[in-house]
Structure formats: structure tokens, C-alpha cells
């Protein structure tokens, strides 16, 4: 029996975690290599969802469902990879969180979900995160990029503190910083010395890919 890559791809497009999980298990039982399953079966599904999204035929709830399906498939594929002593090449390590005093997590969580589905390793520090913790985690996890979210005009200033904390920690040259949230603008990002701003979760994925392009090229991840 041949591996049904088309069905895998479709399970992602349909946002059907149960199907994705069953198909991933089945493919492993057939003896396929986990990376082959990921790259030929499930990743094309995410790509299609991205394309449909760009054409306004799919929306955020569809995107989230696809990410959930991806997560379900990866829940059996990643342990198998590890068992075989391999690892899926990471597109980069990203730390996310909202600024001190800000408890609005939706935007940041959305960005995290989409980045994960696109092959990045995401560490979500949650909400109301002190600037120092961003810096400490970036050092500890050897992060490539830190994303700081703020929904309120009052908590947006905390993004500047995160930039400063990374500078103080001597990490600024090795870690990119991006900012987002309702009141945030490109101009603000430039003013506080961040590397980029994204107006929504989709553009955040594009921005992160762009900023970590050198890393992507090195690992030849094609998602």
C-alpha cells in the first residue's frame, strides 16, 4: 500500500486533527521515514492553507484548525524522529510574550501557533512578562528572535524595555526583536530600535522568516 500523501495534505486543509493523527500513525506503520511524511504529506497542507488564506478563501479559524491538525500529526512524528536519533530541522527558536502589565494574549498566541505550524520552535512566556525574563529566556534557550506583544497604549512602552533588557544582557546583536499589537506601528518599532513590526499574525510569520532567512537557508527548511 502506498502512503497517502494527498489524504495527509487534505487532513491539514480540512483542519481535522483525528484524521491527521490516524494518517501519520498509518504511514509510520508502513515504515515511512518521519521526515518524508512531514515534508511530502503534512507540510504541503500548511502551504495550501497559506495560499487559500492569501486569496481570502480561508480565514483565521481555518488556519488555527490546520495548525491543530499539524500539531496532532507531529505528536507522533516528532517522538519517532527523536527515537531514530534525528530532529526536524528548526527554522529558528522564537520567544513570545506580552509586556509587563499586559494580559491580552490572543494576538501573541495566534502568532505562536502559526510559527509552530511553520516549523519554528516557539517558547511562549505567556502574559505580563517582565523585560528581564525575555532576556533571561533568550539567553537560556539560545533564541534567534523575541516577539513582544502589547494591546494597550499604556503597556506598549514595555516593548522598549524589552529591547533595552536584551541590550543590557549583551544579546542584542544575536537576537532579533519584533513587536506587535493593536497600537503598535512600524514607526514605533523603528523608534524603540526593534527589528520589525507585523500588523497581524500572517505577516508576523513572513517577517520572522525574512529576519531569520540566513538560518532558513542554512537548514534548508522549505515550509
Amino acid at each position, binding site marked *: 500500500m502506498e502512503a497517502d500523501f494527498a489524504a495527509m495534505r487534505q487532513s491539514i486543509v480540512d483542519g481535522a486533527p483525528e484524521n491527521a493523527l490516524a494518517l501519520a500513525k498509518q504511514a509510520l506503520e508502513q515504515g515511512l521515514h518521519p521526515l518524508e511524511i512531514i515534508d511530502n504529506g503534512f507540510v504541503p497542507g500548511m502551504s495550501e492553507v497559506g495560499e487559500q488564506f492569501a486569496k481570502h478563501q480561508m480565514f483565521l479559524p481555518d488556519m488555527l484548525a490546520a495548525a491543530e491538525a499539524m500539531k496532532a500529526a507531529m505528536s507522533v512524528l516528532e517522538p519517532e524522529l527523536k527515537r531514530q536519533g534525528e530532529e526536524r530541522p528548526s527554522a529558528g527558536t522564537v520567544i513570545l510574550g506580552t509586556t509587563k502589565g499586559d494580559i491580552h494574549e490572543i494576538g501573541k498566541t495566534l502568532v505562536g501557533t502559526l510559527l509552530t505550524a511553520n516549523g519554528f520552535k516557539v517558547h511562549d512566556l505567556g502574559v505580563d512578562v517582565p523585560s528581564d525574563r525575555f532576556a533571561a529566556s533568550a539567553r537560556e534557550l539560545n533564541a534567534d528572535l523575541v516577539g513582544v506583544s502589547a494591546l494597550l497604549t499604556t503597556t506598549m512602552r514595555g516593548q522598549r524595555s524589552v529591547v533595552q533588557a536584551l541590550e543590557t544582557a549583551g544579546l542584542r546583536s544575536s537576537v532579533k526583536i519584533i513587536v506587535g499589537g493593536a497600537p503598535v506601528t512600524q514607526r514605533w518599532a523603528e523608534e524603540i530600535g526593534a527589528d520589525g513590526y507585523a500588523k*497581524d499574525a500572517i505577516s508576523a510569520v513572513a517577517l520572522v522568516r525574512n529576519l531569520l532567512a540566513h538560518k532558513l537557508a542554512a537548514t534548508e527548511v522549505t515550509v
Partner: protein
Amino acid sequence: MRPKLELLEHSLVESILDEAFELLETIGTKVAAPEAVDLLRSAGARLEDSIVRLPNALVRQALGSVPREFSLYTRSGERAVHYGGDDVHFDPGSSCLNILDSETQQPRPAISADLIRMVQVTEMLPEFAAQATAMVCNDVPSEIGDWYRLLLVLWYSDKPVITGAFSIPTLQTMLELLATDAGGLEMLKEKPRAVFDVCPSPPLNWSEFASQNMLELARAGVPAQIVSMPLAGATAPVTLAGAIVQHAAECLAGITIHQLASAGAPVVWGGAPAIFDMRTGNTPMGAIETAMLDMGCAQVGKSLGLPTHGYLVASDSRQIDAQAGMESGGSALLGALAGINMISGAGMLDFLACHSIEKLVIDAEAIASAQRLLAGVEPHGEKLAINAFAQTGLHGDFLKLKETRSLFRKEQHFPSAVIDRRSDGKADDILTRARIRANELVTGCQRLPLPRQVEDRLFAIATREAGRIGLDHLPGIEVPVPSGS
């Protein structure tokens, strides 16, 4: 007859309230301020894992003591805003960081001079019953930004103010400024000039600051305006009806906390609900569904007999264009027809991130039209047309009639030159017309001097508080000339 638009079937309003009560009793609400939790618990609420479940009876008891109406007064002591019934008022939107620069029409950080200019324009426009502490002044340190905005409004305006605080110490300074302005704490209670917005975090989370704020405002007797902001599809159910249930539950919880602290203190059933844009993740304030949420939320509050507030007349466009006009004008009409007591949002663009003074004067025209609509169609006499025809027959020269002259001012609203009704000369675009109008308004605005002791005292408080953070000057405030000189 005053035109009115009710969006919800009465049976739907009942279902919404039933579910809101059920939500508070079964799922509960987060309340973080320990003092608020204690008050709720001793009144019979159950606390479990930082979630408070409110028995129906407790919420209903709180609803029983809320004033059905109250008024806001100008500094001169005149009643200027009536919260209650179907009375409709408008004020500019609040607390954005950016202003659309008048010259470049590009957003830039706002400074105190921008707020002063906006206060002057608002002061001159009768369409606005109240001022708002409309933008964050970036030339003022953020630690004192909240009370500083209020100081500037009190300094330059006579109108009531819609304001808000972001911390408890700041709230105390703001109440001190308002009490000074009113002539004492008792006067402030008797004739309040300001309303404070208080925002629960969706879904059903009364943060430590928000819940404590409700207690402090209730005790001071200064009106609190609950600004519940369910985001339909993201931080609230995706259906409009479901999001309205959440709004009702958040308001009911806030009212319960508030009335337990001081039964009979004034509080407003308000909000800034919006849908969640499923493509961008933004919160479109100009979407028709957002206006529908505001109308529905207000209708539920009205069914309980409570004063209401909503967030409309804002646009998501980033410039002064047809989208800005369409969204703002449309929602001004809908809010007015819904009979929402205070409608905030005029002047705002870009998902509430940016204010524009030019937009504010354009929005004033939309508001004036909405106000004209509310005045309705009146007969003005026993006969509607027969008497006029009896005088002029079929000659068609109604222009000459005495009744035309005596009634046309009542029948027609006369827009400012922002609205182009000429058919000759150069056709300027609306931005040019709005700029000219804004300049005229600012030039014509005379600051009503504050009573001497009030001005000295406000100045002293501001100097004291600014001194705490090492600020030795007050942007936008002239030093009062010492007495006797």
C-alpha cells in the same frame, strides 16, 4: 414621535439576560481585588480557584439599587449631560497614542498641544456634550499621563469630561483635581463633572485594578462607566447574540461589585464591543456588526432601565477618506437611533489608534445629522399643508410665506461649510474644508477663566505630583500670575 431602532426581539433580550445571569452563577467571573472578593463573599458569592460565582439574587439586589439616571454638569454648574432614558450625547474617542498631523496627514505621537487643540475644537462644537481625555501626551512622562490629560481638559474646558485611570494612585490624584474643580468632594458627588471608564478584560475578568477602581469610584460617588469589550470570535462567542450575553454578564458583575461598595452610586452600562476580523485579527470599530453589538448591548441595558454607553463614530481607515465618512456617519445614525446615552469614538481612525482633529469636525456634521433625525417629523400646527396651499394656491412660491420663515429653522439643520452645498466656485475636498473649519474653531475659542483659587489649587496639585517624578514644568499650562501683581 422620536425615531427609535431596536435590534433585538424582546424575547431575545430576555434570553440574553437569562444566560448572563446563568453564566455568573455557574461559570462565574474572575475578580482580582481582594477587597472586592471579600465584599462579594460576605454577600453570598462563592469563591473557588480565584473565580467568583454570583447568585442571581445578589446580582438582582445590586441592580435594584443602581440609579436609573444621573447628570453631568459643566464647571459652571449647568446640567449638560443626562444619562438615562433615550437621551443621546456624543464625545470624542479616548486615549490613543497618535494624532494624524494636520499638515502632513501622517500619524505621529500626540503631544499636549494636540490635546489642547482638540479640547478647543470640542469645546466649540455643540454636537459634543462632553470632552474626553482623548490622547496620550507623549511630551508628558507616562507615569503622570492619566491625571495630566484630565488636568489639561479641566484647564481649557467648561464641559463635562469622559475620562479614566490606569492605576489607583493616579485615580486618587484625578479625584483630587476634580474635587478641586468642583469646590469640594461633596460638590463633586452632588454635581459630578466627570465619568470614569473602567474596563473589565474579556472574557469575564475583573482585574485587580479594574475591580478596585469600581470600589473607589463607588465610594467617591463619582460615576463609573463600565466599558466591556467582548471581541466576538476571539475573546467572546462568535455570534453577536453570544457576545452580547458576555457583555451583559461582565456589566452585571461590575455593577454587583460597585453597588456592594456603595449602594446607589451612579454606574453606566457601557462598552466598546467589536467583532474580531477573521482575516487580519484586527478589531474593526467601523464594521456594521460592531455597531450592531453596540446597539444590542445598549438595548439590554435599557431593558433593565440603566444608563447606557457605546463606542461608535470611529473608523478603521487610516486617513480622511470615504471609508472614514461612511463608517463614522453610519454608526452615528445607528447609535442615535438606539438611544445610547453617551456615544464615544468621534475623531478616531485606525482601530482607535489614531485621532484626527479634521475627522472630529467632519464627524460633528454626521452627529448633527443624527441629532436632526432624532428630532423627528413634527406637524407644527393643526393642518400640515392645507393652510399653506390656501395662501399660495398652485403658484409654488412657498418661499414667501410667513410660516416658511417662522418654521424653516426648526425644520432644517444648517451644516457648517465642512459640508459642501455650493454649486459654484472651486470644489475643495473635505480635508481642506475640515482644516479651515478646525482653524476657525480654535481661533474663536476663548478659554473661560477658572476661579482664581481653583486655578491656583489645580496648579499646586499638578506641581506637587509632577515634582514627585522630577518634572519641573507643566507642558501646556501657563503659570498663574501670583495674586496681587
